[in-house]
């Protein structure tokens, strides 16, 4: 069974289509990049998978079932924006997650906290943007989920920290679990991807294995996407 399947998925906001007939299948044990420009529909798709938005038509199935309580128990989701209570400390956030998710591994979270040089007792409101992003990622990766959905996990951090975050992602997901990562920072992330899904103006423009794309096009995924948009720009002129 597919981990995620989208069937003719459409989403409109005030009559404006944001996702147009999205058909997708995501298998277990893969790292998938959800790539596309700002406003392409990445976050909308992710929110539907996480049951935060309902589709206008079509459906998403997670392990064969519609999003809901059961799917939330197996998906660990890193939203684009921070949602942690700013008055909490990392230590409190960890015990909050521990109470909330039965698959949360407190030991792993505390180890990552140390690795990332974060202070267990510093208030989240006093942390920098990069520190908050690291904290949020470590909480999300400390669950033993079947699917990790990471919406722009690299946005606010410097390149050295990006590498560290990618390593954290790689070393903390269980065998057989899948990771869906949305980003527009393609060159930073492409080395860890099995598959790429490219979404453009609400449509799936491409869904292919990362190595297949490199062999067929003889260039990096980043170069391919830059070229794709260049061609599109000239088309419009």
């Amino acid at each position, binding site marked *: 069974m597919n981990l995620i399947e989208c069937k003719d998925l459409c989403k409109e906001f005030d009559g404006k289509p944001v996702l147009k007939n999205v058909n997708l299948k995501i298998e277990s044990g893969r790292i998938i990049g959800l790539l596309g420009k700002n406003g392409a529909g990445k976050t909308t798709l992710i929110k539907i998978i996480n049951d935060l938005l309902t589709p206008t038509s079509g459906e998403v199935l997670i392990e064969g079932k519609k999003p809901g309580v059961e799917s939330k128990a197996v998906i660990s989701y890193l939203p684009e924006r921070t949602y942690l209570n700013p008055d909490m400390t990392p230590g409190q956030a960890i015990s909050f997650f521990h109470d909330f998710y039965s698959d949360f591994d407190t030991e792993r979270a505390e180890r990552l906290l140390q690795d990332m040089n974060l202070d267990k007792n510093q208030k989240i409101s006093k942390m920098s943007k990069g520190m908050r992003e690291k904290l949020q990622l470590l909480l999300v990766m400390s669950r033993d989920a079947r699917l990790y959905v990471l919406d722009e996990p690299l946005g606010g951090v410097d390149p050295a920290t990006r590498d560290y975050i990618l390593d954290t992602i790689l070393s903390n997901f269980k065998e057989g679990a899948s990771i869906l990562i949305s980003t527009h920072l393609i060159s930073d992330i492409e080395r860890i991807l099995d598959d790429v899904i490219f979404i453009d103006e609400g449509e799936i423009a491409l869904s292919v294995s990362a*190595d297949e794309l*490199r062999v067929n096009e003889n260039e*990096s995924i980043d170069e391919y996407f830059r070229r794709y948009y260049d061609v599109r720009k000239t088309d419009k002129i």
Partner: protein
Amino acid sequence: MNFVFDNDRPIYIQLVEQLEKYIVSGKIGVGERLPSVRELALLTKVNPNTMQKALMELETEKLIYTERTNGKFVTTDQTLIQRHKEKFAEEKTEKYLKDMAELGFGRKEASAYIMNVEGEENEPD
């Protein structure tokens, strides 16, 4: 061991090349047991699926073999390792000759340059 990848070629092919190099140079010894796929993936900072694919390729080339339940080992076939080493040497030489040809040097002249290189002989590391 240090692994570096370009983004414009399949990562697993680059992994195969680099692992092959470590095997023929003896940095990963003859008959040595390899770490698990996951450990190797962490070490090289690649996706475990990519590592799995690279190891399968090395297994097809018979440079490594799987002992059921015991893990993966480097071949003990010295002749095979030697053959791969020579293949590397030929490729490097061809590349040098090609670069020199682009500068307008013939094969004889190019090899004369190598013979005339001064300095101590480097111990292979």
